[in-house]
């Protein structure tokens, strides 16, 4: 069997010092499920009476109850407000989640996306009535092409992984158009899991390239893997270890020399925007996570948006739809029946892309401008290097700096302490910080991946550095016997303590079933 053992502990240690007293703890409020709050006879919306009519529903009209609870608006507002209070965002805390780019979300962007001229616009209105929206898409496309130096762009993909699928689909289409069959895609070991998943979804076989001791692609190993069946390489740059691939132009030349294409995972474009144009590195296509580089809100896990930029070689294969400027007017090419669609590989989603995210991203881009975006990269990289420099002596860094936008540490400094990466992360929560990314990239044992972003102040960084130094020293100083180890008990000051993920996966409970709520929650209901 494959010994895939990189997982972290998933069952909590027994707690000390707390009895399960239940109910509210100060203003950490218990909140039942919405289904445990309903009362027949209440309503949260007012609607006019249903006029008399002869039903045209046919034989498939609903018979049974749906089972939804009935509540009035004040109850619903309180319910979701309380849920929000069990959550923490960038607005509340420093959130240095590596490879996720948790930066400030400007509220101007939210205001712009809510303008009725954008928000209350149907995607299939006659295009004469949507010229402003199409114009906005065209303007965003222009910015993305200029910032990357690339020949084409699609705004269609709904998120980063969808963008990866799009880019690799274009590569597949281009290879087909050449009348060739290439089936192998090279992916570095340190890649995001989406890279191999995407390549496999498109029917490619995935061939892993090892890294050097410096955390970069091993050029000799890469050369050895090239051949006429290689469709391309999927490479994240800056890479998942937070490092710039120094040999990237050589890598691009090698891949092109072998007849393959260079897919760049642009998840970390925020580190180099305004300082490096991917086109100058030999990239053939790259997705851009608008929620990372251009700060559309993460929203607890989406929605994202993943435009893809293309080189001249791949641009003709871009998916539908796209906007073309004809004089002053914007035309929408949305079907293969349209001659302008050319060699497009087709449609990958209904309608025209994540318009709400386009508006936010353009608002962010215009606010920063060419000079501000360059400063974004400068400050993001400076903040990460500052953390790397100030924690290097108490933690252990697997690779020498400078890093790009994220500082990577491993768990060597915790050797023989009985404390794990996970424990440090959970202690951080009790100190008022959201944890960094842990155990990723997989190639670094017990990884801590810290991405401060450019929107954090020096004071915040200094506070975080002080806390990390304290925790590292506390771990090394010894933690007493295992049962009293405070690291295993953390976090203590949160709406919930460590959760039993093992039981959750062994006996999945994926929806509420009509049964009484636990007492400690029911008594908190009103």
């Amino acid at each position, binding site marked *: 069997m494959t010994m895939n053992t990189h997982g972290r502990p998933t069952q909590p240690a027994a707690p000390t010092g707390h009895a399960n007293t239940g109910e509210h703890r100060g203003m950490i409020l218990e909140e039942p499920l919405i289904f445990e709050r309903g009362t027949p006879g209440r309503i949260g919306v007012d609607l006019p009476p249903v006029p008399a009519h002869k039903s045209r529903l046919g034989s498939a009209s609903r018979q049974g109850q749906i089972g939804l609870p009935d509540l009035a608006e004040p109850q619903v507002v309180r319910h979701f407000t309380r849920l929000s209070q069990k959550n923490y965002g960038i607005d509340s805390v420093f959130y240095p989640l590596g490879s996720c780019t948790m930066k400030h979300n400007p509220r101007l962007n939210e205001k712009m996306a809510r303008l009725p001229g954008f928000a*209350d616009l149907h995607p299939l209105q006659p295009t004469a009535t949507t010229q402003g929206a199409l114009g*906005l898409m065209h303007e965003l496309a222009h910015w993305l092409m200029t910032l990357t130096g690339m020949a084409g762009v699609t705004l269609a993909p709904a998120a980063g992984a969808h963008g990866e699928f799009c880019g690799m689909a274009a590569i597949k289409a281009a290879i087909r158009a050449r009348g060739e069959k290439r089936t192998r895609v090279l992916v570095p070991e340190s890649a995001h899991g989406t890279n191999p998943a995407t390549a496999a979804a498109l029917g490619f076989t*995935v061939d892993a390239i090892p890294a050097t001791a410096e955390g970069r692609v091993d050029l000799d190993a890469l050369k050895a893997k090239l051949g006429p069946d290689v469709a391309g390489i999927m490479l994240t740059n800056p890479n998942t270890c937070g490092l710039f691939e120094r040999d990237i132009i050589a890598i691009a030349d090698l891949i092109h020399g072998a007849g393959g294409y260079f897919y760049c995972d642009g998840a970390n474009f925020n580190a180099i925007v305004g300082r490096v144009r991917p086109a100058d590195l030999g990239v053939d296509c790259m997705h851009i996570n608008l929620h990372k580089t251009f700060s559309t809100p993460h929203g607890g896990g989406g929605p994202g948006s993943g435009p893809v930029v293309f080189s001249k070689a791949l641009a003709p294969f871009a998916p539908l739809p796209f906007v073309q400027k004809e004089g002053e007017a914007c035309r929408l090419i949305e079907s293969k029946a349209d001659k302008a669609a050319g060699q497009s590989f087709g449609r990958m989603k209904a309608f025209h892309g994540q318009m709400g995210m386009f508006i936010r991203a353009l608002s962010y881009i215009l606010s920063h401008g060419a000079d501000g975006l360059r400063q974004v990269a400068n400050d993001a990289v400076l903040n990460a290097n500052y953390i790397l420099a100030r924690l290097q002596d108490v933690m252990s860094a697997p690779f020498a700096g400078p890093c790009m936008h994220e500082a990577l540490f491993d768990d060597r400094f915790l050797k023989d302490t009985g404390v794990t990466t996970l424990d440090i992360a959970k202690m951080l929560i009790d100190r008022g910080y959201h944890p960094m990314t842990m155990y990723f990239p997989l190639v670094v044992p017990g990884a801590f991946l810290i991405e401060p972003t450019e929107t954090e102040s020096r004071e915040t960084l200094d506070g975080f550095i002080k806390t990390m130094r304290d925790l590292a020293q506390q771990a090394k100083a010894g933690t007493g016997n295992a049962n009293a180890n405070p690291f295993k008990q953390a976090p203590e000051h949160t709406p919930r303590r460590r959760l039993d993920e093992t039981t959750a996966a062994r006996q999945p409970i994926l929806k509420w079933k009509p049964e009484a709520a636990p007492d400690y929650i029911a008594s908190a209901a009103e």
Partner: protein
Amino acid sequence: MRYLPLTEKDRTDMLAAVGVASVDDLFRDVPQAARLTAPISGLPNHQPEYEVDRHLSRLAAKNVSAGAAPFFLGAGAYRHHVPASVDQLLLRGEFLTSYTPYQPEVSQGTLQMLFEFQTQVCMLTGMDVANASMYDGSTACAEAVQMANRVTKRSRAVLSGNLHPHYRDTVVTTADLTGFELTALPPAPAGAEDLAKQLTPETSCVVVQNPDFFGRTQDLSMLAEACHAVGTLLVVVVTEVISLGALASPGSMGADIVVAEGQGIGNGLNFGGPYVGLFACKEKYMRQMPGRLCGQTKDAEGRRGFVLTLSAREQHIRREKATSNICTNSGLCALAFTMHLSLLGETGLRHLAALNHARACQLADKINAVAGCSVLNETFFNEFTVALPKAAAPLVDVWAKKPLLAGVPVSRLHPGQAGVENLLLVTVTELTTDADMDALIAALKEIAQ
């Protein structure tokens, strides 16, 4: 720059702490040939908030928004009233600016909401399990077909001709690129389509939309039986989620996988996105499901809590063996959905659905009374197909200047298809007024003149 807190002094001090002379030194790994020494030329520099506001507001003002005209469009995106409280709550920073709930101790808000969302989706669709949402209905549809291929270990899917053309195209692209067979039937506006006849022992799934693209509602029980007799899964697609308040749930009709566009609850039109895909299936197929799942468990003190679970199916663990390459859901849109559906409740949703249907019936009757125009459907929910005496697309373009946003010409989504030029899809919701209907009827009467 208002979003960047570092001062010049901070930068100088921090560079010294790092031990480099300038920020350029931090980029020394970038090959010389690719280093840009100044901001990219030809692009404007940073702007005050009010300038950005002015520019984008001007662009927005160039559009004719749905609320500014009598409006009858649907075809996969529906204009319903979203209560004001939904958007106000959505803007809470704890929801808006948080990430995927990987740290469950400090993400119980998002997690509990997702658990509620999954439960609501199960209730609406009549299915056993639902995931924490997909990008949208069309991508959920493509994922459903791939899941059916995995479950049945077959690779030939059948698509109803009355599936939304964008959904069909999304599946066609997926089939073409990932390598499975597809039989996509031609559109059948008159409704005669024998899907059971397409079934063979190699068929992995049949994909059928209800109400279908032309608005027709149907009882799918017989089709489900026919599918199950040959080991084929029935995938039911719903693009107007409010219809589930009035129609039998796909689960009660025997569906194996249900995918839906959830936009109609909680989410505005937004020119096509972001929306929220609903994905539900029978319990026995749970582990073949794509996407994130939230599950209930206990914390170290024994209190009920929620975590992301069954993640070993997902790409960050399984890499090239994952059930799907997708790693995000549509969290904020799912939250809007759950909040709006909580406000509606059983009573509100059923009332809203009944209201939509009744108002659509009223308009259908009025249209049938116009000489030369007729409603094709015998059955519908809130959307139906009108046969006009002339080609629909040019009329819709002319009416748009009034402004009157009369509906979606079928030919826009089925370009080049014979026999659909005169067909117009018309949708009525609770937001459609009597005056709106009068405006449409008046325009229809003008055609004959």
